[in-house]
């Protein structure tokens, strides 16, 4: 009677817990082979990464283009500023016209 009861209860428990499955095998491996911080840094340093050629080329060319075009715009702007300034001769000396105009206006005041 007792054996019968035991068998039945064991069977019932097995049926109820049948859906439970151990699913953390990878965690066990990760914990067993846990790396020290030095090993982690070394592995990060030695990590191989794969980059596809086409997007990298496009990005690089775009950056180079952007860099040069920005430089050109800046240099063009400085030139245009210089172009706007006119040199004049006063008493045998050469001055910027706008600078002379400023000095004249100061004296007039």
């Amino acid at each position, binding site marked *: *009677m*007792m054996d019968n*009861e*035991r068998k*039945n*209860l*064991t069977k*019932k*428990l*097995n049926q*109820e*817990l049948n859906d*439970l*499955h*151990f*699913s*953390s*095998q990878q*965690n*066990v*491996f990760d*914990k*067993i082979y846990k790396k020290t911080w030095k090993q982690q840094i070394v592995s990060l340093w030695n990590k191989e990464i794969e980059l596809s050629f086409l997007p990298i080329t496009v990005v690089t060319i775009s950056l180079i283009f952007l860099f040069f075009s920005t430089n050109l715009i800046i240099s063009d702007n400085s030139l245009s500023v210089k172009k706007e300034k006119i040199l004049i001769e006063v008493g045998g000396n050469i001055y910027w016209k706008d600078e002379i105009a400023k000095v004249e206006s100061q004296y007039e005041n």
Partner: protein
Amino acid sequence: MHLIDQLKQKDEQALSSIMELYGDYLLRTAFLLLNDHQEAEEAVQDTFITAYKKVEQLDDPCKIKSWLTTITINHCRSRLRKWNWKNLIPTMELFDRTKDEINETHDDLLIANDSKLCLSKAIQQLDYKYREVITLYYFNEMKITEISVQIHVKENTVKSRLKRSRLLLRDLLRKGEVHDG
């Protein structure tokens, strides 16, 4: 080469095979003892880590299952000691019973077979010392002597705990006081 010998040589494949063989069984044991799936998973993870590190201590490869079960029980106990917040949830006062009740037969538990109530949930509601013996006896199918060795108590204590837990289970199943979680 035997699986345990391979494990002693720190063979990953051997560990994987052992997890495959005993993982579910240990998880179910831990789940009955801890009443929490996540905690049970972690206890079994710790079991395999301990087994991997201390496999040299296993003299008889035939005893691997009971050795792993012992490690799982120890990890469950240690987790319960650390794991206090669950204790804040009020537990059922099930243990104020008279001696006469204890002398009742265990056959009443047979109602569990016909009952639609969840036996594992009922076991999980017992106090840990009762839950432990009833799990080891019914789920792990251990003998009284084996349980006595496993949990380091006298055989008579195991017997009396078994009696007590059967009565408590019977009551829970009859009253339908089985709650999830």
